């Protein structure tokens, strides 16, 4: 179990230090600073073992969060907890920064007392936490005994993530499908590896204790239905649209037993914003952009680079925030760039040409060409040619995921599925989207 939790700033000064178990001493704080934050070589592994003590760290901008333990804990659990901790802090005071942490340190200690007990993670649902950990004054004066006992029964009860008696005039529901697509492509255009990791994020403002059911074009579900319908055609046509999900995880509100038996996702949603599920797909990914690089070395002191990008989606859709990053050799002494669309600039501090395009419709192509002057060096090392990377945002899900339905049932209150206003949005972003050159 987690023995302690420390938060450091970029200099390695301790901002928050909470020790849960006796086996973690004060020197653990310094060990992490010396061996990880101030390490001569950059530490890339998120788990570091120092003197039989394990340090699990995540970094948010300039802030290091480190969980420390001497036991053999489930690393995935610890990281899940750290991410949750970040979410909770963000929900309470916004961006995680040194200043915010310093301003809210009392709150953070309070939160740490609540969500970790003797190193065991407890209820870390923001909605539930906000009912009894607040930033304004001492709550006891405002809360009646009744309210307090209600909180206790909720937090310790079966549905710890939602309290009873919530009422909204308008029952609304927002559903975002957020995906990030990762790609590594060879210079010839062969896909070396590609996968999409996606999240379904919901914001629900519903009254009472509604029961929701979420349906998407999961291949297993569609195939099952297709067989039920007995017509071959239906199976085929639906097979094209369905997607194979490699693995997925759910928010704690989803009834896993029901998912295991019927593969249907039913749940009583928390109030407010939460992440319903996470998933990953690797097959039949729609690659929104294709990058075609062309690098020519002209003698020892010159390099000609030409990069073409092609958008590969419906012409009616618009991709945004497109950025192509073309690495330049380490001995670059000057760059001339010509591009037809957008703006391109040589950024010496990053050793790359950065080409930005604001918007681009589907089925279009654009081109950039650059002349790079090199300084002759006496180093025989050849340039490693790092891959060209790309960033973008498209309004569809590259995995092909579609939301088929999201039904809301509330038996006690008198509103039906039709009365709920539902919003669905798809956003596909680039993860590590690289093409070798």
């Amino acid at each position, binding site marked *: 179990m987690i023995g302690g939790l420390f938060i450091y700033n970029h200099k390695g000064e301790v901002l928050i230090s909470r020790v849960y178990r006796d086996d973690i001493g004060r020197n653990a704080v310094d060990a992490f600073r010396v061996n990880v934050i101030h390490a*001569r070589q950059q530490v890339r592994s998120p788990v570091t073992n120092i003197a039989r003590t394990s340090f699990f760290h995540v970094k948010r901008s*300039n802030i290091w969060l480190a969980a420390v333990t001497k036991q053999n804990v489930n690393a995935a659990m610890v990281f899940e907890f750290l991410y949750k901790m970040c979410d909770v802090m963000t929900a309470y005071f916004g961006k995680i920064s040194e200043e915010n942490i310093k301003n809210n340190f009392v709150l953070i200690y309070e939160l740490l007392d609540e969500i970790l007990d003797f190193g065991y993670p407890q209820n870390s649902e923001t909605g539930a936490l906000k009912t009894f950990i607040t930033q304004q004054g001492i709550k006891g004066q405002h809360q009646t005994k009744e309210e307090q006992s209600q909180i206790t029964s909720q937090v310790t009860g079966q549905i710890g993530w939602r309290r009873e008696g919530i009422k909204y005039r308008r029952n609304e529901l927002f559903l975002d499908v957020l995906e990030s697509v990762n790609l590594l492509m060879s210079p010839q255009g062969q896909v070396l590896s590609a996968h999409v990791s996606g999240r379904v994020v919901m914001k629900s403002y519903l009254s009472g204790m509604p029961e929701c059911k979420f349906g998407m074009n999961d291949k297993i579900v569609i195939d099952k239905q297709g067989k039920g319908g007995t017509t071959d055609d239906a199976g085929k046509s639906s097979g094209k649209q369905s997607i194979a999900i490699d693995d997925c995880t759910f928010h704690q509100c989803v009834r896993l037993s029901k998912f295991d038996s019927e593969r249907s996702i039913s749940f009583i949603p928390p109030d407010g914003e939460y992440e319903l599920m996470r998933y990953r797909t690797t097959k039949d990914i729609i690659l929104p952009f294709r990058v075609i690089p062309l690098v020519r070395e002209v003698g020892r002191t010159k390099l000609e680079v030409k990069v073409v990008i092609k958008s590969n989606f419906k012409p009616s859709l618009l991709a945004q925030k497109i950025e192509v990053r073309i690495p330049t050799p380490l*001995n670059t*002494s000057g760059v001339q760039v010509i591009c037809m669309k957008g703006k391109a600039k040589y950024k*010496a501090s990053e050793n790359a040409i950065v080409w930005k395009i604001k918007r681009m419709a589907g089925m279009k192509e654009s081109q950039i060409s650059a002349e790079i002057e090199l300084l002759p060096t*006496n180093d025989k090392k050849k340039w490693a040619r790092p891959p060209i990377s790309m960033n973008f945002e498209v309004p569809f899900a590259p995995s092909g995921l579609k939301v088929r339905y999201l039904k809301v049932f509330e038996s006690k209150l008198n509103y039906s599925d039709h009365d709920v206003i539902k919003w669905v949005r798809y956003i596909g972003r680039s993860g590590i989207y690289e093409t070798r050159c």
Partner: protein
Amino acid sequence: MPAVSKGDGMRGLAVFISDIRNCKSKEAEIKRINKELANIRSKFKGDKALDGYSKKKYVCKLLFIFLLGHDIDFGHMEAVNLLSSNKPAGGYLFISVLVNSNSELIRLINNAIKNDLSSRNPTFMCLALHCIANVGSREMAEAFASEIPRILVAGDTMDSVKQSAALCLLRLYKTSPDLVLMGEWTSRVVHLLNDQHMGVVTAAISLITCLSQKNPDEFKTCVSLAVSRLSRIVSSASTDLQDYTYYFVPAPWLSCKLLRLLQCYPPPEDGAVKGRLVECLETILNKAQEPPKSKKVQHSNAKNAILFEAISLIIHYDSEPNLLVRACNQLGQFLQHRETNLRYLALESMCTLASSEFSHEAVKTHIETVINALKTERDVSVRQRAADLLYAMCDRSNAKQIVAEMLSYLETADYSIREEMVLKVAILAEKYAVDYSWYVDTILNLIRIAGDYVSEEVWYRVIQIVINRDDVQGYAAKTVFEALQAPACHENMVKVGGYILGEFGNLIAGDPRSSPLVQFNLLHSKFHLCSVPTRALLLSAYIKFINLFPETKATIQEVLRCDSQIRNSDVELQQRAVEYLKLSSIASTDVLATVLEEMPPFPERESSILAKLKKKKGPGTVSVTDLEDSKREGGELNGGGERGPDTAAMASSNASTPSPSADLLGIRSAAPVGAAPASAGSLLVDVFSEAGPAAPSAAVNDDGFLRDLEQPTETCDSLLVEGSGDSE
């Protein structure tokens, strides 16, 4: 970095450095550096001519970036260009730090250096010399090895340049000694010891020390010069050497270096020189007694540095009893000093003093202090030294006390030094054992206290000694039997017990409390907790029991017959069980008695433990025993003749006389004359000389020890082969 000051300031550089220092994160720093590198690359592109100032600025920036740990693969050319400007410091700095063996550049650099060396500007000459010394490559040595000695001895060279030249030459000599040939310069270099300028002398003496270590004969003349220089420094008042007085100590570094140089040579033969030197050493020892002139730690550090260097010179000469004893007394005072470092150094120096016959007795007077240090010292390295010293000062008169102290310390000793301690105890116990029952007790205690650290060699040795000396066999059997009574025994104890009871169990079988069956049951109760080799040994002990005590035959056969023996998954154990069982049931008592006869005495050999201790110390470090050996050899070569009759007399008299040198001399007299050259490895040869004359093969080589190690188990095997042959 070159100081950013006055007119020499480079504002761009200062801004860049402060930018880097203000970076919030590593990433930001890398970004800033990349930007700067791109800027410098575009400036160095070649088509534009840069003025000297900006070239220097950019070269310095590159150097700074390199020192931050980033790769720099350009700018060398610009740095070389800077060399020929009128301010070459930046260029030299860059090249010293960053040059790689790139042939074309080296040629250019060499050219520039050559120009600077032949210029009469001392600043430029020094810069060039520093650059050569910093790079120190073979190419540079080839180009300048002949040039530098001339600069060094030329009459018109500035003092500062001379210093640099001497150190530069030293560096070149260390990297490529074949290229630096002193030849004709030798005497003039030696005469640098007479130089007016103390700095030159200090620099030159480093060079001379290094050179004279390689070819002492050529530099022999330096001894008298060094002695006179030393006596001038030592006798000078602290105010005489204005710049070279450090916290009231005149020229401490130079004094140390002089004393170290003298350690390369034997004592001077010229009486006058020797007298002068002894006078110096006495003065140094006297000064140590004077009250300190300053309370500052630097003052005492400098003073003590000279003192310790002087003491090691005294030890090196090993010919002035008076000085040796005085040194020992001085060190004795340091043993209780509150500075840990001083205590450490005192213990270390005493170790070498202890091996000198003149001061051995003087060292011994400090035994209580050293034992106390071993017990109470907080620093493990100091405790280690204390243990070393105890080992070195041990002789027949105090062996019992020292071994007892070391044994009691062993219980709380640090793990890192335990094995060494165990070996030392084992060696001392063996070396100075007058009474072998004491030896057996000690070793069994050793196994009890630190069983894990007792190596194979130690228990082999006990068995060899017990077998070779029939007067301790009964005692050993009794002691082992008692030791095995303990509920938890170390495996090594079981091994020794099994072997000794198997051989000499009959000697104690008369007592009903240790009747054969009791002995057997005792051994067998440990059997299941032991590893395979020990079990094999125990099985051999059992078959010997059958021979010794026929009444145990049925019990033992039953044990051998049970599945866990006869069907053991280990081939060795199974084979032994099967063969011993057959042997015991088929062979007649006569045959058994012949086959399982008592082990014959082992041939006298050098203790393998000593070899192990030497190996553990490693070849690099000069161990105490090595020192002893070399001392003894040296003694034989130098003054052995005149002490000859004396030693013979000592050796013939009872060896237990508490004379400090009795033991060392005893060894010397016992070692065969022919084996003297090989005696480096055979310190313990004479331990058994009382039992029987040392065999001519006593001077064994290393392989001999190795064979020796295998002895006990090997004989078991040969016995086994015989046995099975018989039963066929």
